[in-house]
């Protein structure tokens, strides 16, 4: 049985960069709990079974180290919420990623 609390949801929301509201904490904690109860059934599976992360039976797919034309800078920046001096403008960054 899972037991997802409001605090757990708040933690997950922080990790996932979601500024959830108080109401959402209530709704989501109940829903995530129900979902995790259902999906948690996989824990019964034998540990000896090997994992499968890729189903296509292919390996060693590589690209030759050859130039492919890049986007025009205008096209690259066209969708940007803000741009300046050929760069994407973003709000202040609080700290370096550690």
């Amino acid at each position, binding site marked *: 049985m899972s037991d997802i609390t409001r605090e757990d949801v708040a933690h997950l929301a922080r990790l996932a960069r979601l500024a959830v509201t108080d109401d959402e904490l209530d709704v989501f904690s109940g829903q995530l709990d129900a979902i995790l109860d259902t999906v948690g059934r996989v824990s019964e599976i034998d540990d000896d079974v090997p994992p499968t992360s890729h189903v296509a039976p292919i390996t060693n797919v590589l690209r030759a180290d050859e130039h492919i034309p890049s986007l025009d800078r205008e096209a690259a920046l066209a969708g940007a919420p803000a741009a300046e001096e050929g760069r994407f403008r*973003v709000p202040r960054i*609080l700290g370096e990623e550690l």
Partner: protein
Amino acid sequence: MTSIVEAAPYTVEEVVERFDPVMGLEVHVELNTATKMFCGCRNEFGAEPNTNVCPVCLGLPGSLPRVNARAVESAVLIGLALNCSVRERSGFARKNYFYPDMPKNFQISQYEDPIVFDGYLDVPLDDGTTWRVDIERAHMEEDTGKSLHMGGATGRIHGADYSLLDYNRAGVPLIEIVTRPIEGAGVRAPEVARAYVSALRDVIKGLGVSDVRMDQGSMRCDANVSLKPKGTAEFGTRTETKNVNSLRSVERAVRYEMGRHAGVLLSGGTITQETRHFDEQSGTTSAGRPKETFADYRFFPEPDLVPIEPSDDWVEQLRAGLPERPWERRARIQTDWGLSDEELRDLVNADALDLVADTVDAGAPPESARSWWVAYLAQEANTSGVALTELAITPEQVARVITLVSEGTLTNKLARQVVDGVLAGEGSPDDVVAGRGLAVVSDDSALTAAVDEALAAQPDVVQKIRDGKTKAAGAIVGAVMKATRGQADAARVQSLVLERVAAGS
């Protein structure tokens, strides 16, 4: 953020009386592939912002990564050069964290199954001994973009009003090389750290897979340091000092952290596991901004890429093509050329070893090759304020000049003029010889005529020579050299003079 500069209260010598230092070094190397790790955009330093970007490296919705074959080859080469095993089946993984310089908010890296693992590097130390550093793994990943912090007082991240992002570097291939804990180095720990990074740089440079320029960020080092009280088995809490940007800084950062840790521990404090930043100016480190929670990167297998299974044949082919390790090469060269330790050191310090070796490979005797580079050319470089390697003359050209001298086409004096001509952009040595008309006059009939002319002009000298005063021939030789504007071989002229006088009697 406060910027309290903490003094390191203990010297390394004092630290090792009470503690054993333990280090772990993580080095990121940017590969010099033509294109990025997962797309065909150019991998180049210093391009106009956001001109080397595409849907893949901008992380646009729907785009998919495509692994660069040469990056995989470079990773395997680095692994082999570090005596690593190559994994039979290796895969990519996503490292998830949000940061604006990372377009997908995950980095494609490798996690449980790095391409190469379990190796070592025997690192030469200053006293001529070596120190074996065990390599845990080396794996492939992608670099981030670069941010420019605008507004505020300093132009730095703290206090900036906003930032501007350039994703040209996003997706540039990186190899991260991780050591196992380096223990037992004691007082030499800072030196071992520097020597390791230096040796690693030389090895990778020798492979030709990266520029390994620490000043340009194509080689970056993170140094983990912890102290273990003497007689205990358990490691102390470590700190990670990020982006140490020169060999000297590696040594200083380790030394500073050792002293700082000892200071904290001996005053009853505890070390916080954290990331620290090295300040080149003060030689100290300061704490980074602590994260609100412990890092949970939620690694999982990259579903957009398939596993890599290097074939044994291919790996053996790469292994067979590995160049000599730089210090092994130096030892061999010293023996082959019969150099003293001092002569070798001078060559290395002058950054002339490769140039001389290439000149020798192009056919010149080691002695002449060395003499040209460390004497005349080093002086030229010094005068014009450029590095020896940047002089506008190639080892092949120097070798050609040496050959011309040994063939007698040039005198040493003329040879210097030829080299000057090459440096001045007048073309190859042969072009300069032809263009400036510098070849020694070796045509005997022309020379004989000049000698005869000089002899006829100075009958008294001829008489002296006939009387056995051969030294008097110098006057004739001088006259001939003057007449040929120095382009004759003086020794040849001397013998011709004696020949003609004898013949004339």
